[in-house]
């Protein structure tokens, strides 16, 4: 009897220990955004889109109800206006330098952001470079582009694009528009060796890059 009780206590303690070591999500589909004003960060809920483990895309994160809601590696549950306004509220400065006329020759400007991804069961926050593969191996430099007016007008739902974009709220300053689709300079895919399966809820955290 004593041995059984001891065994049960050990098992309970072991399971508690393993649970406390794993990441628990601070956002859900129902409450998809959380702001930490001390840390100056935004956490948004998104779901993995397994199609882009095998296909190329130029979108990292898009609002699921946007026109291009099926095209990103992560389908977010937060709309572009909320995302943009929250970044402004936290004091981030938008570049607002991208236009339809200059997009193929211009790199996005604005505050440099640190984007990490985590999900239930992971023990670390993965950098965007770790969960998205750049065929050239260049770092993904996400900047706060702004573009709220274009985002509302075109309604694509773009939150984080993988080349400098005049519609995405934030985008990658390593490439100009057209690098993926037109000039085929680079191929972006989700890293299936790291990311969890299709449909898994992840937390995308955006804060200032130090």
């Amino acid at each position: 009897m004593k041995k059984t009780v001891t065994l049960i206590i050990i098992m309970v303690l072991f399971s508690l220990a393993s649970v406390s070591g794993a990441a628990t999500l601070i956002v859900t589909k129902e409450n998809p955004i959380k702001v930490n004003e001390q840390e100056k960060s935004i956490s948004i809920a998104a779901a993995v889109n397994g199609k882009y483990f095998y296909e190329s895309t130029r979108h990292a994160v898009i609002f699921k109800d946007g026109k291009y809601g099926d095209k990103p590696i992560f389908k977010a549950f937060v709309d572009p206006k909320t995302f943009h306004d929250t970044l402004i509220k936290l004091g981030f400065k938008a570049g607002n330098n991208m236009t339809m006329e200059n997009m193929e020759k211009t790199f996005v400007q604005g505050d440099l952001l640190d984007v990490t991804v985590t999900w239930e069961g992971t023990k670390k926050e993965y950098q965007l470079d770790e969960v998205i593969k750049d065929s050239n191996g260049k770092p993904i430099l996400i900047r706060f582009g702004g573009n709220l007016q274009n985002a509302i007008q075109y309604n694509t739902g773009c939150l984080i694009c993988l080349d400098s974009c005049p519609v995405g709220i934030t985008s990658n300053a390593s490439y100009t528009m057209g690098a993926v689709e037109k000039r085929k300079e680079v191929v972006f895919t989700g890293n299936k060796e790291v990311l969890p399966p299709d449909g898994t809820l992840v937390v995308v955290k955006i804060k200032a890059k130090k």
Partner: protein
Amino acid sequence: MGQSPSKNNKKKTRDRSKAILINLLKGGLLGIVLGYFFALLLSRSVWVEMRFNLGFIIPVCTMACMLLFLWKRVWIRYPFFLFLELLLLIVFFLIYRFEPEALLVIPACLLREGCRLTSVSLYSTNIILAAILFAGNLVWIFHEVCWKSYQVTSGQKERPFGP
């Protein structure tokens, strides 16, 4: 003595209904395969893939082929359809560099997007797709076998069920 005229009419109506259903099935299966062909080929252009719902081609092709098979007496033999299925598989593996996991993801994603069922899991979509293709192929094979045995026993070359 022979069957009464009313019984003959009922038999003809049943045979006609069977023929219509078989034609719809064949058209549907062919449409699914052709839809996937076009969707996969068009998705090679990243520009097109980023702008259009390519999965939508699958239900459109399916409906179009079903209507065609209903309207015109299109007669496709099963070996030809099997050849198209195998060709699709080869094209798929060439595109995705023989990654077997892609077969569990891409077809289901395309079907899900095409039918606007993005909340359905990949697993469920794969089950539905596999069931449709498996059952459809079985029914087509059975129909071909029935047709061959009809030819052998009756010596006739006309189809056993015909509209």
